[in-house]
């Protein structure tokens, strides 16, 4: 199986360690991962903010770069949802028939990390070891656009040493919403305050999620308040083993 990593522009720039964790994980399972250097961005920020013509070059590039892979794995529910749900829309509106076909070929190969591990590779126990108290926030796009369901929790439950605690009101939005956090900064902050309160109620040392963008928002708040609660991407917990524990 030819597997490509779609790291996403945000992870590439801000969280290379999440990408390294995905690579380590997949290699531990005996797979070879390719990292196409020509990749850039899924175009979500532009699409969701209403800048559709500006989204087009990113859609075009995505299809070109990831053509021919059996699987394109990404550690972001939000970007996976963008590719799967909206690349078609952009191609239909501004592209041509060739692009529309290219999108149809690329889209079925795109998987969010937990989907790929559970559905495609058929594994839940990755031999991970993480002896810490952790709570999990299911991000909105993973939850309601991709419908990843309890896949991430099944992966986390199989981690040795973990103390997994339930997050109250887990399914309510953290208030990030991409440019929403800038356009409606006060409402975003009010939503963040409630999410942080729920995280603190669990007494967890780590807040885990499958999207670094939501984690940057929540983690940014937790850090500003000096709560001591750290945020961590699902891939990074799964990549930890007894030999290389955090």
């Amino acid at each position, binding site marked *: 199986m030819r597997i490509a990593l779609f790291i996403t522009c945000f992870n*590439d720039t801000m969280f*290379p360690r999440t990408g390294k964790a995905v690579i380590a994980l997949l290699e531990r399972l005996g797979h070879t991962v390719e990292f196409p*250097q020509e990749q850039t961005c899924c175009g979500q920020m532009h699409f969701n*903010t*209403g800048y559709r013509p*500006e989204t087009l070059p990113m859609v*075009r590039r995505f299809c070109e770069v990831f053509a021919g892979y059996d699987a394109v794995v990404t550690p972001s529910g939000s970007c996976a949802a963008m590719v799967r749900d909206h690349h078609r829309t952009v191609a239909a509106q501004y592209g041509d028939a060739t692009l529309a076909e290219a999108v149809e070929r690329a889209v079925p190969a795109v998987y969010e990390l937990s989907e790929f591990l559970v559905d495609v590779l058929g594994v839940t126990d990755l031999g991970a070891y993480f002896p810490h108290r952790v709570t999990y926030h299911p991000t909105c796009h993973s939850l309601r656009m991709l419908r990843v369901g309890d896949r991430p929790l099944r992966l986390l439950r199989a981690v040795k040493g973990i103390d997994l605690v339930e997050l109250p009101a887990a399914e309510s939005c953290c208030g990030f919403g991409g440019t929403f956090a800038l356009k409606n900064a006060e*409402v975003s902050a009010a939503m*963040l305050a409630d999410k942080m309160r729920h995280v603190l109620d669990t007494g967890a040392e780590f807040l885990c999620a499958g999207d670094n963008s939501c984690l940057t928002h929540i983690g*940014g708040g937790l850090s500003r308040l000096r709560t001591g609660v750290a945020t961590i991407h699902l891939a990074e917990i799964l990549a930890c083993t007894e030999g290389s524990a955090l």
Partner: protein
Amino acid sequence: MSGADNVVWLGSPAFPEAARGALNDTRMRANLRRATGTIRDRRLAVTAELDDWEELRHRAAEIKRRTLRHLDGHLLRLEEAVTAAGGTVHWAADAAEANRIVTRLVKATGESEVVKVKSMATQEIGLNEALAEAGIRAYETDLAELIVQLGGDRPSHILVPAIHRGRSEIREIFRREMGEWGRPAPEDLTDDPRDLAEAARLHLRERFLRAKVAVSGANFAAADTGTVVVVESEGNGRMCLTLPQTLITVMGIEKVLPSFVDLEVFLQLLPRSSTGERMNPYTSMWTGVTKDDGPQEFHLVLLDNGRTATLAEEVGRQALSCIRCSACLNVCPVYERTGGHAYGSVYPGPIGAVLTPQLVGVENAASLPFASTLCGACYDACPVKINIPEVLVHLRAKTVEAKRRDRLLPTSEALAMKAASAVLSSPRRLSAAQRLAALGARLVARDGRIGPLPGPLARWTATRDTPAPPRESLRAWWRRTRDEGRTTVEGDGR
């Protein structure tokens, strides 16, 4: 009349500013959190009871989409059936025309007051204000609408217009205002819900017994039989629908259903979605007029007011499927924090954010499509499966296009987005930007975190720290550790 004039009260500031005020009202936020939380839990419990809930949703969505595709035909059939049953049908292109028709009809009766059944359509066109200008007083009879009217307030929720008010506030409003409008509240009125309800009951009873003309909206109308339906909780609507001599119903054209049989689906979905009840306490249906029973004159005003234009929108038209249950409001995390007034429209919350800009034109409600995190909870809750997030991003694109058309110079946001697109679609430029960001961050970061910053980053960094980007991006790390020795590594800069 056009643009923002056809839906009342878009005079309020844009959503972010209006929301800021609402967020500071801690009492309102507490009222909202409690009320939406209660309805949300009840709704989940009663929808889980039905094995075929998902199938019902699917059928409802199908019926609505199909009806909208042939709306003209169904409306003509409805007109025929209502007329055959002794009613009169009027067509109103916009709010002004609808208000003129209703005013003329009331004047023809010689009366100078009307009782009203809770109705979103008449709120939408500002009927009470139009009647007042013509010297006709409109009395709201729904308990929550009464609270809003007495308080000189605006509704804050589609179904629970006074959701933002607590018991003690309602007591104050009743004591202060009831006497101005009719029977005053008792001197010793407490804020006990029973006491408050009794005061409203006595106040309203006088009104019902005196009224000669009633004005209502409609939840549904069946085209094959000409039957109009109003669903309610208190029975005050039924009093208005039976006691007066003349009944005038203002109905949005999208409320028509092809057949009476279709009600089977919607009368299951609506109460469960809206109030979390298995069945609403009062369902009133009337077909034209019946000799010596109920109103002897019935007028149905079919209201367009932007709906035909919305129908022409391939993506946006699904908003016309809305049955005004307000389930989307009760699950929306943004609505829960801001309440309804921040939306500046009689249709607040997620459905308001997609319906209002379409009825008035996106340029007149430009901030509303952005009043959402796109979390998708509204789409999951909607009993007729309106893909609200899809319509929101569609309208965002239309808003940006409208701004591009209307301005000689692009907005600063448009310039930033254009620049970002150039960077994010080229691996070479992205690489360079990453190196620059890592370098810049090093200058402002302390212990790997970036604190409050001035300028364009102020709004983000006011409440959140930002992690400093690491020295090496993933692509740079891959190139250094894995790709050494290869010839081409970077993009062609397209």
